[in-house]
């Protein structure tokens, strides 16, 4: 299950709509091992495509270094689908390389109602998970209860 604030979801949807019809992408960093997404970083899609996204390699290095320096890791890796459902494509599965991350997909088509979905992608296996939106203070409490 992905526990995230409604505010972060809103920001991702807004970015996806703004960049439509091109695919948008980015990450939400959080303290390593915390499983709590905190710091949203929009990334440049160098592919500038309706059917593909790829992080800019220079920007990715900077962002990854910054996370290492702050003791963070990518908790959420998100991108949009601008003409298909919010379900991982073959390439999404093939290139997924952060087994601890929640892969979040936002669909900006009008025909797919479930527009934000989250998945784990580990060794080529896709598992959908529930997204639980909770305000900041509540999020910490839910995390504690889950650990009991």
């Amino acid at each position: 299950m992905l526990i995230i604030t409604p505010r972060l979801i809103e920001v991702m949807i807004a970015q996806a709509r703004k960049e439509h019809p091109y695919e948008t992408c980015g990450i939400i960093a959080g303290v390593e091992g915390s499983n709590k997404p905190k710091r949203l970083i929009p990334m440049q899609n160098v592919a500038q495509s309706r059917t593909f996204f790829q992080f800019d390699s220079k920007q990715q290095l900077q962002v990854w270094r910054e996370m290492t320096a702050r003791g963070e890791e990518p908790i959420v890796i998100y991108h949009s689908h601008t003409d298909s459902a919010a379900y991982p494509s073959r390439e999404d599965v093939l290139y997924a390389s952060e087994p601890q991350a929640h892969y979040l997909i936002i669909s900006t088509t009008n025909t797919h109602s479930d527009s934000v979905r989250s998945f784990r992608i580990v060794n080529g296996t896709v598992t959908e998970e529930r997204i639980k939106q909770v305000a900041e203070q509540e999020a910490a409490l839910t995390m504690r209860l889950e650990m009991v």
Partner: protein
Amino acid sequence: MAITVNIPTILRPLTDNQRRVELSGATVQDIIENLEQQHTGIKEKLLADGQVHQFINIYVNDDDIRFSDGLATAVKEGDSVTILPSVAGG
């Protein structure tokens, strides 16, 4: 003589969970060969048909080797080599 190689999360199972490995070599190619000597199986994750895989980024210090000399890019003592799988999809 040491060059620091930063290993991404997904490849750490191959480096006994080490985030950094110290190696020597004159080019990125040497570094990959030496990495393979110590941590068998890592080379095939980085290269395909003798070329860096399209969705693997390798940097020497701040520079992506795609935009310099690829595997022939020179490295020297004190340099850091960073391997990052490119975040991409469809």
